[in-house]
Structure formats: structure tokens, C-alpha cells
């Protein structure tokens, strides 16, 4: 019975005259649908300008006939994501963020455990947003979600590694921000002369590698 690929529950919501918002049961189902949409677009089976994954939805924008796709999409078979796909991108990090103690208290662990836990996890870029090249990375399973700071900082330096909700993110450039900061990376997250301009694109697997002090 369970040999054929799962057919996850999908809900197709209208979004204007050219777009559809596909809602799934959870983030991993959204990532699986995202991978399938990219595959179909690459194979020429789907014409769409934007495919935008998010927390548990995928937006399709720039469709010629959204209603036709809306009727077909719920019957698609979506293969589950392969357990290990492409190479893991390693990001060097110094765990020197100002909010390490707050995160440790929230998690109920000593401060020195936060880097160990964070560096042991394998992350995946679930989606991008907030700023060009800002990825929302999932992978910290089983830990309490980290609330955003009550008062966002007016400036967060580029390369800051932060936590918010179930996500880890890295600020591609200096900007205001409310994430709890645990570290810093020298990696260049955004360079519009590079293809792709974003280092972290949806689906990419990431590990944080602590730098020796």
C-alpha cells in the first residue's frame, strides 16, 4: 500500500488572476512540492515566472491559466524529498553572538552547548525572503522555537547568524533585524555578480562549521 509515492494533502488557494498559492500540511511537504515544480518546469511541463516556496506554501506567479493548473495539481504524485541530495554547503562560523546566553536559557542548556547543538545540525534552506539572499534554514528539530527580540536591533551586521521561530538565518548585509544572534560568518551570502547571486537558495543543504578562535 505504501510503495507508491505519497499523495500529500494540498489546498490550492486563488491569488489574483495570474497566481496560485498551494498550501501543504507542513514545511517538508512544501519542500517536496517545490522540488517537483522545479523538475516539471525544467522538463518543459510547466510555464510559470516565479516559484516561491515559503513556510508551508508554494506560490506560483505568472501563470497563463491558473484555474487549469489548480484543477490538475491536487492529483499530482509528489515524490518525497530524497534523504540526502546534493553536497552539503559548509559555512564557517564564529559563535560570538550577543544573544547566546538568551538562547541557552530558552533551550535550558549551558551557553557552551548552543554552538555544539547548532553545529551538529544539518540545515536545509526552506525558503528565502526578508532581503535578497536571506534564507530561512530548517533543521533544529526538537528544540523550543526562539522568539524574535521584543525590540528589533536597528542595525544587525552583515554575516550575523540568528535564530527566530524554528529557523536559522544569516543576514546578507547590514540591516535592522529582530533575530536572536548567536554567531558570525565571513561567507558572502549575496553577490549579484555571481550566478546565482544568493549563496543560500531554496533546497540547499547547509552545515555550520565552527572556526577555531
Amino acid at each position, binding site marked *: 500500500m505504501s510503495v507508491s509515492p505519497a499523495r500529500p494533502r494540498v489546498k490550492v488557494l*486563488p491569488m489574483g488572476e495570474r497566481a496560485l498559492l498551494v498550501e501543504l500540511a507542513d514545511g517538508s511537504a512544501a519542500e517536496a512540492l517545490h522540488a517537483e515544480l522545479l523538475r516539471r518546469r525544467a522538463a518543459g511541463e510547466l510555464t510559470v515566472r*516565479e516559484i516561491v516556496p515559503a513556510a508551508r506554501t508554494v506560490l506560483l506567479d505568472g501563470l497563463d491559466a491558473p484555474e487549469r493548473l489548480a484543477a490538475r495539481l491536487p492529483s499530482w504524485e509528489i515524490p518525497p524529498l530524497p534523504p540526502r541530495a546534493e553536497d552539503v554547503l559548509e559555512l564557517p562560523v564564529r559563535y560570538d553572538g550577543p544573544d547566546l546566553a538568551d538562547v541557552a536559557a530558552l533551550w535550558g542548556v549551558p551557553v557552551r552547548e548552543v554552538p555544539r547543538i547548532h553545529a551538529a545540525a544539518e540545515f536545509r534552506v526552506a525558503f528565502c525572503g526578508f532581503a535578497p539572499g536571506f534564507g530561512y534554514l530548517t533543521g533544529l528539530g526538537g528544540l523550543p522555537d526562539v522568539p524574535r527580540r521584543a525590540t528589533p536591533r536597528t542595525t544587525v551586521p552583515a554575516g550575523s547568524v540568528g535564530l527566530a521561530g524554528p529557523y536559522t538565518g544569516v543576514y546578507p548585509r547590514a540591516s535592522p533585524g529582530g533575530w536572536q544572534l548567536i554567531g558570525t560568518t565571513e561567507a558572502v551570502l549575496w553577490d549579484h555578480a555571481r550566478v546565482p547571486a544568493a549563496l543560500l537558495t531554496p533546497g540547499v543543504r547547509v552545515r555550520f562549521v565552527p572556526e577555531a578562535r
Partner: protein
Amino acid sequence: MTDRAFAVVRSGALTTVQDEGRPGHAHLGVPRSGALDRPAAALVNRLVGNPPEAAVLETTLNGCAVRPRCAVTVAVGGAPCPVTVDGRPVPWGMPVRVPAGALLDVGTAVSGVRGYLALSGGVAVEPVLGSRSTDLLSGLGPPPLANGAVLPLGDATAAHARVDVVPHAAPPSELVLRLTAGPRADWFTPDALRTLATRAYRVSSASNRIGLRTEGPPLDRAVSGELPSEGMVLGAVQVPPDGRPVVFLADHPTTGGYPVVGVVRPADLAGAAQAVPGTRVRFVVTGALTPPPG
């Protein structure tokens, strides 16, 4: 001196370089950007003989003044305003020849908000991800114009249009925004949707290239709690916690966590670009008031 460039003499309240924007990168968090009043930008490009993808200047309320270093053909459109060359009035909405070194002044709008200045050859700043547009949300593209800046011009590719009169849509005295409901109309009470469809809103002075903010009766939520971030589209009517609808314009964020009650037709957004603060807004719901069962 014949170099193809112009100097900014008066940058105005906010003048940016705009073209057709950079769609196709929303999944990387890159807004689409581009001219807010697309038909007006396309028209001035046609008038000076530019291809539709050429970059123009988008002004805000009080225009700008530039001094081309070479002879160029220009056209000013969008919000109607006086236009002068070395202090002498020249036609608005028509191709005008400006000699090298002359001062072209795009004056304060007599109605509407955004003016468009096309120069033959187009503004030729370095493109970023295929577009020369200034993106005020994320800072991509050239910065807004500053006094004294010198911007390059491309080579003119075709003769200007030969026209006697050009029709243009007057900026609206009332802004009518037709929208289809969804994707999160069910996050609001039925009363809220009636409120949106029947009550008058006004354009808020807090509006910008990211969104047209409105003042009016707040929309009440039927579902409390937070919506996980989801993808956003041009024209999305997002409702933040204060209940006042915000219509997303060109520089809108690519994802957002406030529910979208409906999506305005892109054709109606040119009017939104020209609606001065205080303009009455009428939302006309054209789709079903509730999304179809999933």
C-alpha cells in the same frame, strides 16, 4: 563635449531609475521593482524612440531637473506638470529636443504623484539581475538620484515618434481597485469583507513604492494567531494587525506573514501609483467572497 550622460541638478523629493523590473528572482527574496505607472513609463519610451525595456526616471510630486551633456530627445509623462528647457516652456507628453548643456526642468505635478522622464537611449546605469530599477525595499539597483550625480545614457536606437497629440489617463479623483478575493479571505469575518467592498477608504500619506497604505474602517479577523510566511504578489491586499489594507506595489517584499484578503488587478495599479494622499479608494470585489473549498 559629446559624452552620453546627464547631470542631476535638482533631484526632487524622490527620483529613481526604473525599467520593467527584475521579475523571476522572488525565490531569492528579490522584489520585482520597476516603474509604478507602467503604461506611463512605456508611453514616454515610445515617444522618444526607446525600446520598452529602456530605463526612465520616475519622479515623485515635485519632479527633477537634469542637464544632458549631449543633445537628446526627451518626453515627460505620468503626472501632468510644467516642463521647461532653459526656463522656456516646452510641451508635456510630447517628444522634445534638448540641446547639449541645456537645463531640463520637470516641474511640480499639478495632479497625480509620479512623473516619468524618458531620454533617448535610456538611462544606462549598470543593470543588476537584468534590471536597472532602483529597489527601495532591498537596495538593489542604483541609489535614488542625488544632486550632482552624473548618469550615463545609452545610444539612441530609433527616431522619436511623430505625433500631434497623445491621449493619457488623468490621475483619478477616486481610485477604484478591482480585486479578487483570496487567498486568505477566510481569515476575516464576513462583515470585514462587506466593509472592504462597501466602505470608503482614503490613500494614506504613508504610502510609498512598497505599498499603497489606506485609512478607513479596519477589517476584523475571524482567525487569530500568526500566519506562517508565504509568497506575495503584486497587488496583494495585505492586512496588518491594525486592520487597514495595504496594496502591494512594485517594491513589495517577496514573502510576508500577514493575511492577504484579495489581489488587485495589475491594470488598476497605474491609478494607485498616481493617487495623492487623501484620494478616496473604492475596493470592488470581483471574485467570490470566499475561496472555493480546497
